[in-house]
């Protein structure tokens, strides 16, 4: 398990794909848990429509997840050590592709969701 989360070396494509799938599944699971908790806790007394409150909660969940993920990245760098980060080696990036996908994916997902929320709040999109 430690190999999956704290090993940045690229071995083969199969391992890489497996890592990406595991990262995505675990991220989705974590995000779901956070969203589930947030949907029960946040905006309970808000006068916003429920859908908007839930969408807002989801954005907060993404934000919370992103913080958790960044903590992971911090631990990952701490554990691997900066010396073993071969920034000039392209294979090094191939080994980190799962982390990159989740990192940038979360950011993109946040903005996409924020955009759709803005759209829904926009007067012309109420129905």
């Amino acid at each position, binding site marked *: 398990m430690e190999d999956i989360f704290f090993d940045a070396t690229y071995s083969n494509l199969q391992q890489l794909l497996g890592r990406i799938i595991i990262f995505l599944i675990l991220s989705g699971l974590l995000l*779901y848990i956070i*969203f*589930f908790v947030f*949907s029960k806790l946040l905006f309970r007394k808000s006068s916003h*429509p*429920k*859908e908007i409150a*839930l969408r807002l909660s989801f954005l907060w969940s993404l934000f919370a997840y992103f913080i958790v993920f960044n903590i992971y990245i911090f631990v990952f760098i701490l554990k691997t050590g900066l010396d073993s980060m071969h920034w000039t080696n392209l294979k090094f990036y191939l080994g980190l592709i799962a982390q990159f996908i989740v990192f940038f994916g979360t950011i993109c997902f946040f903005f996409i969701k924020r955009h759709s929320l803005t759209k829904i709040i926009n*007067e*012309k999109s*109420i*129905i």
Partner: protein
Amino acid sequence: MATPTVIIGIGTSGLRILENVQRFYYESFGVNKPEYVQYMYIETDSNSEVGITPVENEIKQVLISLKEMKTMCKYVQNLGAKWVPPLEELSIYTIGAGGVRPNGRVGLWGKNSEQKNYIKVKDAIENAVRLARSPHNPDITDTEPAIFVTGSLTGGTGSGIFIDLAYLIRKTVTNIGELYGLFLLPPIPSDLEEKAQYYANAYGAINDLNYYNRSDTLYHETLPDGEEIETSDAPFGLTQLISQNYVKGDPAISTLNGLYKMAGLYLFLNMIGVKEHRMARLVDAPPSHYGTFGLSGIQFPKDQIQEYIAAQLSTSLVERWNDSNQYILQGNKENIPRNDIAEIVKMEWDSIITDAFHILDSVGNITIKKEIIEITNKIIDKEIPDHSKYLFEKFTSRSTNNIYVALQDNISNAVNIIIDRIYKLNNDILNRTENIHYAKITLEYVTGFIDETNKFWQSIGVSSFPKNWEVSLDKMISEINKNRYKYILEHQNLLSEKIYSIFEFMKMHFLSSKLVDIHDNILNKEQSLRSTSKIPLKLPKTETYDKIAVELAKVINDKKSMSFYKRMDDIKQDINDNTLPILRVFHYGSFDDELNYALTEYNRNYSYPSKVDLIQNDSLWEYLSSIDISSLQSHVYKDGITKFRDLIKDKNCVNDYDVTKYIKENLENGIRIAKKATNVFLSIKEGYTLDKAHYLPRFVAGSSRNSIEEVLRFFKNSEKPFDDFPISDPKTILPLPNLQNILVFYDEKTGLIPLEMISYADRMKRVYDTKPKNILDISEEQWKIRTRAYIPEF
């Protein structure tokens, strides 16, 4: 013992004299008349308005209708009257009798589609006499009443009806005690031809009166009720004639109002005891049909000071209401804060629309929210196979029994809330600020926010048309199927909320057209919308404020009708009128100083006049808007003067003043005024002197015998002794305990032969006999028809 007395004014002059009587009485007694006196005036001009005192007006108007003059003439001709002139000669006048004597006379006897004038006048006289013989006072019930008829002989009404009226009174009041006439004549003509009609009418009237005063003349008329009057009695027991001129050539009284005042003072004095005193003397005098009198006084014009201050305070109050820039906040003047008003209205409008939406959540005992939860549960529990169709049926406008119909039936409740709350907001703001412009701006902002709300609703697709509703409904139902958040167990809440959103959208659909109505109604001239609540309230309109503003501006400074500035000007003019034989004296030297002192006293605990002074805690909006706009000016005028006068009186801002004190200190002035009383109000030809016999009334009236005696002693013992009012004659002193703030000198003359003695009688005769050359539009014969009413000449 008091004599039941009826004072009848004829025409506008008669009314003005009665107003003065009422004013003098109010000033002395705090009420407009005693129980045993009745005032009424007969008028052909429906536009004349009664002046006021702080208590309810007691002058009853009897309006003679002069409409359909030809019909009335035919009617009177059919009664057998031979004096009715040819019909084509009687013009139709829009105001009163138009100076034409026969118009007034035909008016008294005639009837038209509006009323039977004769019956109206007869009933009014009977009623006035009945009331004067107050049933509450058994002492005077059986006493023979005294009746005074007063007015001017220059106009068509007075000179037309005065003889008929006298005979009608004699016929109607069977046990009449005394019937007197007090009539005003025009002054020495400065431009005879210009005012020829006045002089010809006056001459004609006296000529006719002379005719009926003769014992060999028979007055014979068939009354409209079939009865006949056939008598050779004179119309009046005594006819007093006065004009603006003095016998000894002092400058004439400068205004007609001054003469009204003197006539009013004369009648007032007669009401409170002078008549009995005069009669006790006149009983020894040889019979005379005509008389005149001189009257002068020294007065502290308390009543006028109070009224002037009342007018000033009323002006301040109305200016406060009608200030387009500033309003009064906690005693300080502040600019009207448009931004703050917008904020307040925004919050209030949010609250109004929320409440209006809220009231629609229930229909009778059914709570729509509950029903929506039930629908949601059915959908969640999959009891409904096609929930889209099911929802559509619940909300479509095409069904006859669903939520749509229920809401449609309930929408009036929301409209009621909106109207009632806007009314309340307007009412509260106006009561708080007492500024109609502030309140109008508030209303304008309300319409602005209604407009904004409607625009917003339109922008999200709200439409009041059922067809568009169906399209929106379709769209909303399809939205329900998306994003159901089932995986976080929120799908039930979300579904219920989305269905409720459809319901909320439906509220907008129904309310949008209502909001347009409300918006337009506030701004436009249509009839006001009313709520159908338990206490129905009328939606305020900005246009009402515009109209109120115009009327309030008029009540402050209109030159043509009742206004505070006009009244203040009139009072000042009267106070400063040196041609009047009344000397005004003051505590503080002058009228202006007296006003300043009284105003300072009044303002001791007040910064600005407020609506509370006028209507206490009643609603200002109700006060201003419930009165017919055409009478708002006179209403506010009367309320302002009466209520503030009451307050001034209650606060004792103007104290009484013992005028004898002034006389003691200013003896020369005192004697000068006393002498004026012997200078009667009529210009007499040289070579004629009026009777000065001892039996004629000549006396001084004041609040106490001691003070009068004191004044007369001072007069007698002055450097140039003045003894025209001899202290040795007990009848010279007439104490009238309630006659406060004034000392009156009175001198009566009888034996007057008006058409011989009046200095300008010949000139009056000239225009009576021959039409003046400057009158081109009528013939000589028409002139005669207009100026002759009784003695048959044609």
